[in-house]
Structures are given as C-alpha cells and as structure tokens.
C-alpha cells in the first residue's frame, strides 16, 4: 500500500476497539498543493508542502492565520482532495490506517448526548451497543466526564465539549490523530488542564498526532517537532526539534531555560510570516 492515494478515504476494519500501546501511522506528503476557485480568481491555500511525520510522533504546525493549516489537515484526513501532489498515510504493520480529526470550535453534535457523541464513530463501525457503551464510558472516565454522560452538549461548558470532541476521536482508536486548534477557544486554565490530559493520553497510546495551533507555547509544551508554516500560500518553512524530555509536565517545560530560547527563535521566524500575512491582507481586495 504505497501511496494511500490522492485524497482517498482511509477507513478501518469494522469493530476497531480501544486498545492501548498500538503504534501510530506515518504521514508523508509530497508536493501537496490545493487551490480554491473563488469569485476573485483562484487562491492557492497551500503550495508544495513536503511533510514527513514518523509513527508515534507528536508534530505541531504553527503559522499565521489563513496560511492553510486547516486545509492541510483536511487533505491528510482525506476530507478534501489536493489539486496536485499526494498524501500517504501508512501503518507500520501495513494495515489500513485510521485517522480522526478533532475540529476547532463546536463540532460536537448538539442532538446527541455526551455519551452518544463519544460512541458515534463506533456505532458507524457497527460495534454492538453494549460494547460501544463500555468503550464510551471508559473514555468519559479518561476525560473526566463520567457524570455528564447523559447531558446534551448545550448543558455543559465549552471546555467539556472540547473534551467530548477529543473522546469521540479517540473512541475509534485512530492511528493518526489530527487536531485543528482544539484548545483555541478555551480559557487558559482549561487549556492547561486539557494539554496535560492530551500529553498523558498520547504517552500511553503512542498515536501519531498532527496538531495545528496558533500558540507557540502550546506547540513547545506538546510536540516533538514544530513545523512553521509560511503565509499564504502555506508551505513548510522550517522544522524545529523540541528538546524537552518526556514524559513532560507543563511546569517542567515552562521552567526549562531552553524554553525561553526556543520561544524566541520560533517567534522570530513566525513573526516574519505573520507580518507578511498581514501586509497581504491589507493589500488584498478586501
């Protein structure tokens, strides 16, 4: 299964269950490009993106807003087709890789209860009611929502809803977890707690994570490697290794002397792109 083909849907065998210790999938993109037709002419969202993520790696992508980060994730997820180039997602053992995307904002279905939301993917895969209920309960325990299982999303807080979205993605036990600014809308304290939870989950499951964020801080705390994207059309400008030891804790990383240094380097790089993006927006038709 060389190239998992351009934009092809990647599904798992029915009945995937929650299992710990499984190895993640690798992601390789070559010459990835996506153009959108708009009334004012074609817009190139991402251009010539070459990306390699190792199995089990936690990789963060930072870039100015509108640089095509979300487009890139959608392409890797198979929700969108590239204009040219290819995406390959592969499992070490050669099996069919699965991915799950955690969207930014309100992606939790308002018409399902917390528990039904988490079990949704398993239901689609034909997992029996009793088994998917058990799996959902287990995940709700992991994200600390057991007592809200029967609540509807509008009855719980934004932070809890984002936990539900993460649990829903984890429920299908994906080899690759794609996260699109999952904590962007949360207050700082909630964000810290969820970052710690995500670290813990990642450390115990060994999934590959591709994590889009606008926060350098968040990228440094979570990731093994930070990819800096350029202003539109987005392309990978640099890859920075994050040196902090695992298992990590928020406080240990923040008090590490290398933290400030790395922040400075990354911001210097990102700043140029953000400035470029702003100038482009101001010069643009809007």
């Amino acid at each position, binding site marked *: 299964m060389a190239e998992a083909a351009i934009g092809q*849907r990647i*599904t*798992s065998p029915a009945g995937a269950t929650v299992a710990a210790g499984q190895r993640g999938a690798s992601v390789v993109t070559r010459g990835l490009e996506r153009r959108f037709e708009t009334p004012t002419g074609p817009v190139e969202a991402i251009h010539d993106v070459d990306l390699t993520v190792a199995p089990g790696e936690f990789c963060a992508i930072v870039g100015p807003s509108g640089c095509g980060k979300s487009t890139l994730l*959608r392409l890797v*997820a*198979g*929700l969108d087709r590239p204009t040219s180039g290819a995406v390959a997602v592969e499992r070490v053992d050669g099996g069919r890789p699965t*991915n*799950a*995307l955690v*969207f930014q*904002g*309100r*992606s939790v*279905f*308002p*018409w*399902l209860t917390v528990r039904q939301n988490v079990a*949704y*993917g398993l239901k*689609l*895969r034909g997992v029996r009611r009793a088994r998917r209920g058990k799996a959902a309960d287990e995940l709700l325990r992991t994200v600390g929502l057991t007592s809200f299982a029967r609540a*509807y*999303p*509008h009855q719980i807080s934004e932070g809890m809803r984002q936990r539900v979205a993460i649990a*829903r993605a984890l429920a*299908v036990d994906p080899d690759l977890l794609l996260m699109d600014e999952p904590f962007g809308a949360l207050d700082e304290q909630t964000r810290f707690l969820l970052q710690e939870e995500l670290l813990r989950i990642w450390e115990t499951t060994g999934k590959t994570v591709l994590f889009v964020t606008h926060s350098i801080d968040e990228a440094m705390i979570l990731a093994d490697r930070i990819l800096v994207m350029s202003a539109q059309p987005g392309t990978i400008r640099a890859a920075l290794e994050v040196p902090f030891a695992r298992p990590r804790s928020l406080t240990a990383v923040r008090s590490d002397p290398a933290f400030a240094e790395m922040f400075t380097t990354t911001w210097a790089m990102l700043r140029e792109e953000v400035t470029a993006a702003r100038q482009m927006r101001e010069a643009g038709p809007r």
Partner: protein
Amino acid sequence: MRRRRAIELALTIAAPLLILGIWEALARAGRLDPIFWPAPSTLGETVTRLVREDDLLGDIRISLLRILGGFLLGAVPGVALGLAMGLFWPVRVFFMPLAAAIYAVPKIAVLPLVIIAFGIGELSKLVIVAISIFFLVVLNTMGGVLAIDPMYRDVARNLGASRFELFLTVALPGALPAIFTGLRLALGFALIVIVGTEFLSPGRGIGYLIWESYQTLQIKAMLVGLIVTGLMGWALTLLLDVIERVAIPWRGAE
C-alpha cells in the same frame, strides 16, 4: 422555578380572559347591541343546545380529522422533498421555481381546481389542506438542512459515515428544529384553509357551522363556532409542542 411557572400560566390565560371580561362588561352596561354582540356569559346555553341538538362535537371531530388528515398528507411528503432539496442541489434547482411560485398563491384560490380534480367529497378537503401546507413545509425543511454547519458533515464523514448514515445522523436531526418551525406554521395554515373550505362546501364541520349560523342570523351559534375554532388552534399547537419536546430533547441548544 415553580413560581415562574405559575406566573407564566397566569399571563398565558390573562389576555383572552381580559378580552372576554371587557366584552362582558360592555354588554351588561348596554353599550353593545345584544343581537349582534350578546354577552359571552349568555353563550353557555347556546353551547349546550348546539352539543345536544346539532352535534357540535361531531363538527369539531370532522374538522379536526380533516386538518390532521390533510396535514399528514402534505407534511410527510413535504419533509421528504425538503430534505432532498436541501441535500442535493439538482433537486433543489429543479423544484425551487415551482415551490417559490406556488408558495405565493393564496391556497383557497385553488379550491375550485381541487374540486374539479377530486370531487366535492372528503378527499378534496384533505387535498386542499395538503396543498396549502406542502411548500411551506418543503421550504422550511430545505432551509433547515442548508443551515446545518458543514463541520458536522465533515465529522461524520471523517468517522466513516456513508451517505445514508450522513442523512440519518446529521441532516435529519440537524434540520428537525426548522422542520418543526415549518410544521407549526403549517398547522395554522391548515386551520385557516379548512374553515374557508367548509364555508364554501355545505355539509359538516366547524367552518360550515359558522357560515350557516351567519346566513340564518344565529349570531350566538356563530360566535360559539369562532371560539371553538380558536380553541382548536390552541389545542393543536399544544399537541405539537408536546411532540416537539419529545422529538427534540436537545432543544435550547441555539
């Protein structure tokens, strides 16, 4: 919370009671012509007489059955077509001009045509109700589907939903609030149209009672007919509220 409920209930029934109170007071003070505006308190015996001698309950039953029958006949295919138009753009483009044009025609104007096609029996009354509400339900349902955040579709697709599963788990529940808005409007239309239709077709039904009473200058019976019509509308709306609460337990999400 209980206090709030009590106040709500009191306010809900206050407006109609106030109107009846003013009417009653004016009638007793001799300010209203008792032939055309008899006091509400004198209508009680008319109700009793209508129930005993003229089978008022039968008229109510017949009108309700016509409304419900016509409602189902129009709403069920209306929801189906609305979903299809929301989901598939060719279907939408194909039906849209038709829906927009027919939506604007006063439905009672179509009655002669319906009678030509379906005769003067019960069927034509069901059909005219169905026609009047069909496009209302269609347009609301379609709007509901189109208003669903595309993110939900992406979530479902990402987790492996087939087209049919997408429809069942995203489009349908996502459109339900808008569907119920359409049904609520449709119920009002159904009542309007059935009363109008019964005006024009001798026989049974609450509309015919009103018209016949007017023709024979039985003002009290006519007023009873009007009040009953109002109560029917109110009861049907309450029924729909209950159904909606069961069908959309996540209401309050917006």
